[in-house]
């Protein structure tokens, strides 16, 4: 027994030495790899779950481009990613929602870079109905609980020849705070002043249908998808990738130009092109209810957040910038993103991002030459 005790204390002592070795490494901000003479670099990032599938794919693909660079991205949510980069505990963050003014005040050199865009689609479960068309005002009325039955004249008018059931509409929504809810409610708010003023726009809202007992909540995109699949006569909203990979039917929408559109690469590109010049100096833009002829109306950008100036480890910064420009400009990366149901950046936006990457400095020196 005494031997066991001695043994454990030896390990504790070893550990403490290891910690002791770690402190100077952290304060001098040089990577452990740099100390050990190896050239490998690990970049840690965290944030939005929405782009997680494509980032994971990219990180794997990037190993063949830069074998020495390992990128670790973890989907902890947009809010978590923003907090992590404000605490400087990650090298970069991913976020679907924009940084607030007070976050910019706290760390003025933070920069959001649009990477991809994605669509949110209204999914439904109506046995016997394989095609459903909705427009903005009808969507607002359904989610406001003004329209409560599927055979409502407003829905019937948009779907001639479709036999809609005489059944109450069940509204499925996110029970957790979510960027998807923010995008979806922004769309409803863009269509209807009444929605904006009485229900509101945000990551978590009070759903009017819940008050009638016709609402069900689900956690995460899978929760909503499952709720809709399991509940006949339900309608809900998820990201396009979830609807596609689980083969859940989603409705076509009448867009701002008055055309019926479905969510696909073409309609997403059209919406982004319509708003290609909408970027402000922070390099952020809304692409909600786009005016293009073929524009899918419910969309949002997802961003990387990086430091523009406060970089001390230039090797890491260089690796990060090279990765970001590869992700934005490489054709294979774009193809992979498109395969997964994401919309890649229009050329005009790509150029904005590439120009911004050129401006990043480390210890006062430009990193990319």
């Amino acid at each position, binding site marked *: 027994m*005494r031997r066991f005790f001695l043994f*454990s204390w030896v390990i504790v002592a070893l550990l403490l030495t290891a910690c002791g070795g770690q402190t100077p490494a952290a304060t001098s901000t040089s990577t452990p790899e740099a100390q*050990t003479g190896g050239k490998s670099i690990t970049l840690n990032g965290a944030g939005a779950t929405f782009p997680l599938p494509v980032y994971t794919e990219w990180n*794997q693909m990037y190993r063949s481009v830069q074998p020495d660079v390992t990128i*670790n991205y973890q989907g902890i949510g947009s809010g978590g990613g923003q907090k992590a980069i404000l605490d400087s505990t990650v090298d970069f963050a991913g976020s679907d929602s924009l940084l607030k003014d007070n976050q910019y005040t706290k760390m003025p050199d933070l920069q959001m870079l649009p990477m991809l865009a994605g669509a949110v689609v209204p999914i439904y479960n109506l046995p016997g109905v394989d095609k459903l068309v909705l427009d903005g005002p009808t969507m607002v009325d359904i989610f406001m609980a003004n329209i409560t039955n599927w055979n409502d004249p407003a829905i019937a008018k948009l779907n001639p020849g479709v036999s809609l059931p005489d059944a109450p509409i069940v509204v499925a929504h996110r029970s957790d705070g979510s960027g998807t809810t923010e995008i979806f409610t922004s769309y409803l708010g863009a269509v209807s002043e009444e929605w904006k003023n009485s229900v509101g726009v945000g990551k978590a809202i009070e759903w009017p249908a819940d008050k009638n007992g016709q609402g069900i909540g689900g956690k995460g995109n899978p929760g909503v998808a499952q709720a809709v699949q399991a509940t006949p006569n339900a309608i809900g909203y998820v990201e396009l*990738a979830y609807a596609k990979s689980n083969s859940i039917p989603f409705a076509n929408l009448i867009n701002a130009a008055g055309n019926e559109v479905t969510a696909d690469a073409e309609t997403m590109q059209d919406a982004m092109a319509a708003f290609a010049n909408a970027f402000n100096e922070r390099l952020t833009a809304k692409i909600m209810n786009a005016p293009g002829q073929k524009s899918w109306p419910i969309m949002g950008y997802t961003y990387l957040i990086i430091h523009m100036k406060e970089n001390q480890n230039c090797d890491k910064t260089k690796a990060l910038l090279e990765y970001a420009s590869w992700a934005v400009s490489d054709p294979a990366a774009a193809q992979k993103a498109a395969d997964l149901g994401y919309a890649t950046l229009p050329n005009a936006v790509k150029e904005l991002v590439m120009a911004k990457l050129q401006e990043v400095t480390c210890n006062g020196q430009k990193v990319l030459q």
Partner: protein
Amino acid sequence: MPQDLFAQIDLPRVYRRRRFLNDVALSLTGVAVALAVIPLVWIVVYVFLKGMQNINLDFFIHLPQAMGTTGGGVTNAIQGSIVMVLVAVVVAIPIALLVAFYLLFHPQTLLGQILRFSTDLLAGVPSIVIGLFGYAILVVPFKHFSALAGGLVLAMIMLPIVIRSAEEMLKLVPKELREGALALGAPEWKTSLSVVLVAALEGIVTGVMLAIARATGETAPLLFTALGNEHYNVVAYVRQGISQHQSIFQILHKILAEPTDALPLTLWKYAQQPYPERVAQSWTVALVLMFFVLALNIGARSWLARKRRQTRG
């Protein structure tokens, strides 16, 4: 007189009544047992059926594949869980045993009361709060998520469990045993280590096993400390370190300073993915996690049983 009394009682009827009551009570206890056991069996069987489909050697020795593809494994999570639980055990158990011995010898002192009170408080702190605390004191100052931070947070979760169970077990050791050892001239520390601790070992190990099982299954505190890492591979780190002639401290540093994954963390992440392959793998992770904990328990119990047979025989 007694004979008359007996004659008045309808014996078969009484027996029948008693037998009937006995049967009712017995079947009620049977129902209760079934109710208690069904959820456990159900969970085990369900997870087993769902998880078996993906189980193969690759699952244990390979890093994860890209999403939406079959194949690949979770060796990063398995290795991360083992590393963090080892760190937690090494840190928590010596401290917990020292505290337990202090509480045994000085239960009424001010420090003893403070220790006991704060142990109870620590046991009641939600694990996600411990995770946030770990983020604030172990991650933010070093600007780095790490396996070490994850292990230390798990140690914080294990501490109160081990302290309370060890204290209870030490209290059960008869005072006479201790007094006997002291009377024979053994110093206090020797008495504690080779008499009291050995006598209470079985209970203490059981408590430690419970604590390890609890720590292995924790997700929330690791979100803020270990973060997750699809590339974590101790074997590769060691191999790379040897090929580059690094010292053992440099290799150990690499193992502990990288962000890492854990089985419950992977389960939580995979279950939310849009890809059916990932969701199927999350069931397999659940199965592995379940057997990891089960094997730990069974292993410890059989080790104890053998040890007891040795000391008695």
